[in-house]
């Protein structure tokens, strides 16, 4: 019983973490057909911005959280204006943006190294405290991450489904020309997606850097894991990505608890490979068409 509680808790927590990172990646892919390899850099931008607020300016961590999210969103916007927008719709868009986002990522990591140094840091918890359920330690910060993730997933789905701007994002991703004939400003819609996605990565950065250590390269692993989850869920499908995040998180957690930590990663990968052989477009990726 204790093991089961441990596995479920770990699964939901890790799934929420994966999801926070992966939804942003999938949004950008769905709307712009762009693989954003600077997503991990937005993660550390958020985390370091929050750390600077707390450690240097002695502000409460909630202010740090807010600044972190804004800093990451702003970085995404600047990256979009400087590197993505000029090549939109031009031949070679895929390679140009792939290289540009890697470049932005390296530059931001180097900046973090210069400003904060190579030593690992810890961002304080937004909520301290913990209690035990059936032998499993439940932290308040963990509960917060889960709550924030679930609320955001619901909010993003509602936004895409019902709001004017959310519908415009789907319209642009499905039929760009028609969207522009419906008076949708395509470039501004892309900018909204970039800001939203980067802000989500920044939020994940602030929340997760209290569990894990923060270093200039600590955005890389969450990004790769998010990328795997995104491909598994069906690139560009927000709902698929969210489901995939919890499936992968829960599977990994159960394997870890019942078979040992060394089985978790190989087990998860084996499962994903088998599913992708059966469904090459991922869980929810019904061919090319099924997108946002």
């Amino acid at each position, binding site marked *: 019983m204790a093991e089961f509680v441990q596995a479920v808790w770990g699964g939901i927590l890790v799934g929420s973490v994966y999801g926070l990172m992966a939804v942003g990646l999938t949004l950008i892919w769905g709307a712009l057909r762009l693989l954003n390899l600077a997503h991990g850099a937005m993660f550390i931008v958020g985390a370091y911005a929050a750390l600077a607020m707390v450690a240097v300016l002695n502000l409460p961590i909630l202010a740090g959280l807010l600044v972190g999210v804004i800093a990451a969103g702003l970085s995404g916007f600047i990256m979009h204006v400087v590197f993505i927008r000029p090549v939109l719709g031009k031949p070679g868009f895929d390679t140009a943006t792939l290289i540009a986002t890697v470049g932005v990522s390296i530059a931001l990591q180097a900046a973090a190294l210069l400003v904060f140094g190579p030593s690992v840091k810890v961002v304080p918890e937004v909520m301290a405290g913990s209690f035990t359920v059936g032998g499993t330690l439940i932290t308040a910060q963990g509960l917060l991450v889960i709550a924030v993730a679930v609320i955001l997933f619901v909010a993003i789905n509602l936004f895409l489904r019902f709001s004017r701007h959310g519908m415009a994002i789907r*319209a642009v991703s499905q*039929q760009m*020309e028609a*969207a*522009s*004939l*419906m*008076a*949708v*400003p395509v470039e501004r819609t892309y900018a909204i997606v970039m800001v939203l996605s980067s802000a989500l990565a920044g939020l994940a950065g602030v929340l997760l850097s209290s569990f894990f250590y923060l270093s200039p390269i600590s955005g890389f692993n969450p990004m790769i894991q998010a990328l795997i989850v995104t491909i598994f869920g069906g690139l560009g499908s927000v709902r698929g990505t969210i489901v995939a995040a919890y499936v992968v998180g829960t599977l990994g957690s159960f394997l870890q608890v019942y078979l040992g930590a060394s089985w978790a990663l190989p087990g998860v990968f084996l499962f994903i490979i088998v599913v992708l052989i059966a469904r090459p477009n991922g869980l929810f990726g019904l061919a090319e068409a099924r997108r946002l």
Partner: protein
Amino acid sequence: MLEVTDLHAGYAGSEVLHGINLQVGDGEGVVVLGPNGHGKSTLLRVLSGLIRPHSGTVHFDGQDITGWRPDLIAAAGLVHIPQGDLLFPEMTVLENLLMGAYDRRVWKERKQRLEHVLELFPWLIERREQLARSLSGGERRMLAIGRGLMAQAKLLLIDEPSLGLAPAITERIYASIGAIKHTGLPILLADENANHVAELADRAYLLEMGLLVRECSAQELLQDETLLATYLG
């Protein structure tokens, strides 16, 4: 309402339109007739901003809109219902219609606009929750026109509404366009076939090899059998 002067346009390296002069007045139905591949779609795509003209000017509703972005032209009230419908395939019929009302000012009145469009195409009511990609050709065409009507258009550009449709459905589509015209909305229609458009059109232009070679009233057009035989088969 719309005034096009000496418009030259085309694609990289090749000019398709070699100096188009054309007017559409208030409440007027104007048809551009011509065989495939002579520049009808290119003309409409230039007018709605999807293609930038090489030279010439487009004036619409008192403004020079030459070279404007398509979203700004659409917001100004020049609404293009494109060839091939270009629906949003993974959105429902209702969502497709709502996208037509995207412009902030129109969005506030989307409920009234929706009622208006559903009156014209009552068939859409039953299908409102269906995904656009699951519709038949005729249904898609009606949705495309309905979506264009959701915008607060001052002039509608319609590109070959009969393309790929069975004759029975074609008649219904032209009847709906006729009903739209009767509401006083000016229409610029590009078509291959003169038979259907005579009742909609006050005037017609003949487009050949990227040039408007003749302008006439709709009656003249239908009576001139040599002309019909030559240009329109």
